């Protein structure tokens, strides 16, 4: 046991400069995935609640396809489908794949939180003479956003971990580094323990920040 800890520590000390650089790439992938996913998600959520059968149909097809296929397939599809045609770096192919993938899940989060706002809120707003747009902008969306923060936080953490799959198209994020380290050093076990620890620490930091933000929102409004 002690021996394992000391070899893990030794691998950690030997590799941390590279891992820190790779961790930045992981965070960048996550950031793009989350931001792009949020925009895509918002657009498709609005389509789903628009009342237009055509827009709803488009959103449903998108969400069904993305949720019905593995992320790794989507990454490969985007990589070979787009990078080959347009010149795009592997990083951006992977980041966009993460964004597109997240968009489908985030769309459902937004839709759920918009529809989860008490119908009485809409009625009260309408009864005061506010039109549909004013009701949505000033009454429903602010409450929906608040409701969506915990599930969005979860989705961000999933994205952080899912970004490891981008190693398949050769983006130098932490999992691909761990993979290479494992092969080169003949210490696969220790290498993967080290990378697991990196993810664990990152997720814990994320979780802590989200918790802090949620609490702050609660304190403000109750």
């Amino acid at each position, binding site marked *: 046991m002690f021996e394992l800890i000391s070899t893990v520590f030794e691998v950690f000390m030997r590799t941390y400069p590279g891992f820190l650089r790779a961790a930045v790439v992981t965070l960048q992938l996550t950031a793009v995935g989350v931001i792009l996913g949020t925009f895509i998600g918002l657009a498709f959520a609005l389509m789903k609640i628009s009342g237009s059968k055509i827009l709803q149909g488009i959103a449903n097809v998108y969400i069904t396809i993305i949720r019905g296929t593995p992320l790794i397939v989507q990454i490969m599809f985007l990589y070979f489908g787009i990078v080959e045609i347009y010149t795009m770096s592997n990083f951006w192919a992977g980041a966009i794949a993460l964004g597109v993938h997240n968009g489908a899940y985030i769309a459902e989060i937004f839709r759920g939180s918009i529809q989860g706002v008490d119908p*009485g809120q809409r009625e*009260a707003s309408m009864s*005061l003479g*506010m039109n549909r747009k004013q009701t949505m902008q*000033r009454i429903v969306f602010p409450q929906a956003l608040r409701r969506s923060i915990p599930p969005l936080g979860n989705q961000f953490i999933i994205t952080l971990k899912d970004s490891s799959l981008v190693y398949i198209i050769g983006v130098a994020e932490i999992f691909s580094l761990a993979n290479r380290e494992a092969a080169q050093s003949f210490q696969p076990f220790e290498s993967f323990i080290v990378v697991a620890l990196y993810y664990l620490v990152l997720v814990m930091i994320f979780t802590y920040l989200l918790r802090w933000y949620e609490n702050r929102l609660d304190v403000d409004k*109750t």
Partner: protein
Amino acid sequence: MIIGENIHKSFGDLEVLKGVDLHVKPQEVVVLVGVSGSGKSTLLRCFNFLEMINEGSITIDGKKVDPKKDNLTKIRAEVGMVFQHFNLFPHKTVLENVIEAPVTVKKMNKDAARKLGLDLLEKVGLSDKADVYPSKLSGGQKQRVAIARSLAMEPKVMLFDEPTSALDPELVGEVLQVMKQLAEEGMTMVVVTHEMKFAKEVADRIIMIDQGTIIESADPKNFFENPQHERTRQFIQLVE
């Protein structure tokens, strides 16, 4: 002020209102009573077009409303509504709740709206709560804020949909007091309630709705002492 003629309303196969005629005069206080499921709340919701009638017509302040052509948003602004569950906006302070519609709909400037809001809060006895969020209020306080919020649009008529049904018994009085004061000031009101004491004291007319039709319409004295319909008699026995 409100004229409803031959109002029919169905939800799917269920016909809730079966040809209701109701004429509410300016400054009149009409209390609608009836057992649950009789259609009284639905009728109230039809009057500000939260529900669309299937047949018949509704005239508000001399203007017959055509839900297909008319701007319902504008009509709703003139008809205040108070809900059983208050429906205050939880993300806004008490004052923000009250001035939301004047600022957003009437484009009233912030200072004027603030003054209006504080005046209305004073009227309902909640000046000191202007800057707190609704979650910090008791049910009775919430409902009084909801009344102030409705009044902020200076409606021509106020509809009350069981305004005290969700309140603890000890909080009912403060809400009824505000409503009574409104009635005394000459507000036209249509009130769905189970508070028979309030009906007796404040109503100009009590209307009994049963299975989607009006079966009794009388001033409080006649309604309670000399009901014409058997179902009304049963209802009065039940609530007294």
